[in-house]
């Protein structure tokens, strides 16, 4: 990390929660109000940072690179002579980026102030051993919305694979294939490729299933001496003919 120029941040890519977070950290390093930051300087800082990370062969998530590409575009648009036809103008794009940074910054500070408050159970305490009050309603059952939807999530997660398994697939069973091949083979005089035994119009998964079943059927029928098989070499076309 000593390789980084002194005026850039230390490369620590794991610490960032996305490119906007990194941009905000860089913007804050300009030590001015977010309203006053120089977008050009910020773009420059970001590109230097990302290039340094790549030079160190750190794996950068794609969204950092997408942001880098967009910022490079923004930079050139801000520097080149204006094209008045172009909307939105580069200044508008820069303004939008600045507004986003301000909003993220506001929420980050709000979050920090929130968790720094006096927290129940950490800084302030309820009574340690309350006597407890009589529950007026008899046998009141307690459940929170979280319990309810978590329960439904659990059921869905549990039953999901089951639903996947029972999904109906269009297949040709072995019985069907034996029936079909033994009927068709009687009508063929010449050697016929196994594909010609498949139902016309068979497509996709069904065709694959029909082919596999027909192949196994052919083996079975050959074993029974009802047909003969011929194949020149491995993976060559497979031919069938009724036994003489």
């Amino acid at each position, binding site marked *: 990390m000593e390789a980084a120029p002194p005026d850039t941040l230390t490369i620590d890519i794991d610490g960032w929660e996305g490119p906007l977070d990194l941009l905000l950290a860089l913007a804050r390093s300009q030590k001015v109000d977010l309203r006053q930051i120089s977008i050009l300087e910020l773009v420059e800082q970001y590109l230097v940072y990302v290039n340094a990370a790549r030079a160190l062969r750190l794996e950068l998530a794609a969204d950092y690179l997408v942001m880098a590409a967009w910022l490079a575009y923004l930079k050139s648009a801000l520097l080149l002579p204006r094209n008045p036809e172009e909307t939105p103008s580069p200044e508008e794009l820069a303004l939008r980026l600045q507004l986003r940074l301000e909003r993220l910054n506001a929420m980050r500070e709000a979050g920090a102030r929130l968790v720094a408050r006096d927290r129940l159970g950490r800084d302030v305490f309820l009574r340690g051993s309350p006597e*407890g009050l009589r529950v007026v309603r008899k046998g*009141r*059952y307690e459940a929170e919305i979280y319990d309810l939807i978590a329960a439904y999530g*659990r059921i869905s997660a*549990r*039953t999901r694979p089951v639903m996947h398994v029972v999904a109906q697939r269009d297949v040709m069973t072995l019985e069907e294939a034996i029936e079909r091949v033994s009927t068709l083979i009687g009508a063929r005089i010449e050697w016929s490729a196994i594909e010609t035994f498949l139902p016309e119009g068979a497509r996709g998964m069904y065709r694959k299933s029909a082919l596999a079943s027909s192949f196994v059927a052919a083996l079975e029928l050959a074993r029974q001496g009802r047909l003969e098989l011929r194949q020149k070499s491995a993976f060559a076309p497979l031919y069938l003919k009724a036994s003489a």
Partner: protein
Amino acid sequence: MTPQDDLGRAVEAVLFAAEQPMTIEEIKAHVGSQADVRGALAGLEALYAGRGIELVRRGERWHFQTAADLAHLLRRDREEARKLSRAGIETLAIIAYHEPVTRGEIEAIRGVQISKGTIDVLMEAGWVRPAGRREVPGRPLTYATTAGFLSQFGLATRRDLPGIDDLKAAGLLDPVDLAFEAELEGEASETVTEDE
């Protein structure tokens, strides 16, 4: 505020948050070993005299308690709020998401039988009601949720329940662990026993 008041406040807070009556030594462990805890206790005793809360001494230990004459306002009832069983909450979730739904359908979705008491508990809680019979062989009774269900769970309508996509995004569809599966099996065998 005088130092004596500061000590009074400290002792007051320590006794309030304590889970058990405390000795003066135990209080000193919190407020400082040099402190005049005995004096502070006397001050608090006087301050609270006649109020709804009293500082009382039991042997060597001190604690706050509600004034004895107000006990009738508080009387404890052992029949306290009970948490729904896992079978109960799952059955309720299925009814809410699929209503009107028959018991057979609930079992098919849960993948586990439900004992008769499960739906009874939901009806007793006022969250589930019978919703007519399904016009199929056997005419099974269907169940649906009530207005009480909506107010219990802070929903304006059933449509406000998060959908499957929302649950997935919230990480609620993550694979169930083995311990849970084991528990389910236990439950299933229990049900069989009950039905026999």
